[in-house]
């Protein structure tokens, strides 16, 4: 995983609550056995006017001009501004893979779904939870000013608006360190290998039926 560095990125507003993972990346694209290449199909049903198929050349497809990510002012956006319960629905990690592959580094919303929250951090995507009224204000500011960009500073847990306003956010220490240092959490867990083995042995003695050989 790449280290998460402080950046200033253009913000794209997605004014819709309960954005589910089917909307982020429709199921036909889940058939890939790779982790990459999902960006062109991010928000496929909103972004294009036709039905997308896997392995298709998307440059030839008709774009939906009303969809926010197709508007020139949000080209190269790196921050997605969203509404409550972003990422609800399925556990597909293809959703953060698609967002990241598209170029997003951070998403701001009043709340996120639990599984999506975990999946995003494991892929270096920072999720920033702000109060509903703070998010509402950001929506207004983004709308008013073309090229609106936020300075995203994970180290200090804050974002800075173009006017210099500082908004602080909470993130747990473990996830923060993993992002900042680009750590692989399997490697971290395996440092506790002895503790896992010791637990497993005790668990096996106490509840041997949980260890029955299948078939």
């Amino acid at each position, binding site marked *: 995983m790449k280290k998460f560095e402080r950046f200033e990125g253009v913000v794209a507003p997605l004014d819709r609550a*309960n954005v589910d993972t*089917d909307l982020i990346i429709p199921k036909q694209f889940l058939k890939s056995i790779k982790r990459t290449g999902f960006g062109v199909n991010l928000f496929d049903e909103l972004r294009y006017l036709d039905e997308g198929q896997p392995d298709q050349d998307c440059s030839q497809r008709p774009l939906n001009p009303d969809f926010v990510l197709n508007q020139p002012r949000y080209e190269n956006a790196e921050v997605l501004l969203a509404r409550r319960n972003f990422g609800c629905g399925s556990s597909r990690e293809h959703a953060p893979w698609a967002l990241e592959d598209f170029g997003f580094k951070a998403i701001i919303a009043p709340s996120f779904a639990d599984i999506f929250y975990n999946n995003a951090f494991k892929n270096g995507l920072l999720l920033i939870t702000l109060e509903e009224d703070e998010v509402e204000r950001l929506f207004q500011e983004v709308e008013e000013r073309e090229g609106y960009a936020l300075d995203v500073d994970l180290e200090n847990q804050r974002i800075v608006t173009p006017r210099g306003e500082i908004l602080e956010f909470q993130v747990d220490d473990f996830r923060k360190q993993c992002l900042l240092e680009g750590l692989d959490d399997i490697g971290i867990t395996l440092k*506790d290998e002895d503790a896992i083995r010791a637990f497993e042995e005790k668990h096996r003695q106490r509840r041997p039926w949980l260890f029955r050989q299948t078939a």
Partner: protein
Amino acid sequence: MSGQTLYDKLWEQHLVTQRDDGTALIYIDRQLLHEVTSPQAFEGLRLAKRKPWRLDANLATPDHNVPTTVKERAEGNSGIKDPVSLIQVQTLDDNCVEYGIEEFKINDPRQGIVHVVGPEQGATLPGMTVVCGDSHTATHGAFGALAHGIGTSEVEHVMATQCLLAQKMKNMQVRVEGELGLGVTAKDVVLAIIGKIGTAGGTGYAIEFAGSAIESLSMEGRMTVCNMAIEAGARVGMIAVDDTTIDYIGNRPFAPTAEQWEAAVADWRNLVSDPDATFDKVVTLKAEDIEPQVSWGTSPEMVTGISGQVPDPKAAPDDTVQRSHTRALEYMGLQPNQKITDIKLDKIFIGSCTNSRIEDLREAAKVAKGKKVADSIMLAMVVPGSGLVKRQAEEEGLDKIFIEAGFEWREPGCSMCLAMNADKLGAGEHCASTSNRNFEGRQGYGGRTHLVSPAMAAAAAIAGHFVDVRSLPANDATHAQEA
């Protein structure tokens, strides 16, 4: 000190280490694998030259991509016409062979939807931690297990370490008290719960479903309820162990054998919340208030009773909800205040990890028996949850009832719940579906999903529009019989 909740107990029994930063490692007893969310996890293991920690904790079966027509299934993997789907199923087979993981392959009679297969085999036991790269893993919580839906990185993490990195959730109890009316099923209960607490109401919580109406449900009904915990935002749903749980498990292939059975049962009896346990949040519903449910919108919280109507967005409590409702009605092609019974259907889907077990099929068959699917219905299909469910249904003659009524009788898989195979809705088509999600495009591009119980789906197939299953003569007869 107050007592422990069921979730507290399961957490404590599996806690390996608790770190200062609030994260913990919890030990995983069972991982279920399917073809969609596992290939990148196996690839990760391979690249890092890691081996699975404990092979016998894993059990795999292909379900999302498999065709459900009899003819294609007869050909095994080569019956999968979509080359990309075929690669995915083949990749699961190859990975299971390479690493030595037990798999029920496409034409194994034990193959089926992972969340049907695990419990059916006794591979899901009380007191287990169960994970699967699928959000409906909460299903297994019906056994007093701690079951999480996880992402692919976590699938890889569990394979490599037998542990999940987790933070303890808050405790929520959802109580449904009283007696469910005739024709009101587990599906209606969980839809009513989601309608009440909302699609994010359970975010950050482990939900325990309790109360006399929940206790009265069969294991299959309990699985239906826990299955949809994620539709209320909760990763984990669970129900305490009782006689119903223990009776269900006895003699299943992976269940404890003679010498361990008594010890296991004694241990499982403790898998209940203590009487003095405290929950961070308690929600109560009265069973008598729940009528058969139908979803009208594009989120499972957009649901109402069969006697209800489509809401008017103007009546929404805030702007965000108003915009969601307006957008949903536009997508669904419905009018504000339209009666639910006036919604006409084009397709009917009975199946999915929510409602494809034998009792679900019996309920639907009871309604369909001796009737005909309405001419206006383009396709009505019944997709059993596993090969064993299919076999059982055929032994009971349910397949004949469905086929005579005009339903298609299919082979097991996820099918039109998420339409990764060939079973899908066309744009604008309305479907009465026993699945779990009515998101835009979920069952096919532009498709319009209405979530209902199996009996309600069968009744809609016969009538061509939604009807109150309680008003059908079949139910009156049953009522008279039972009374």
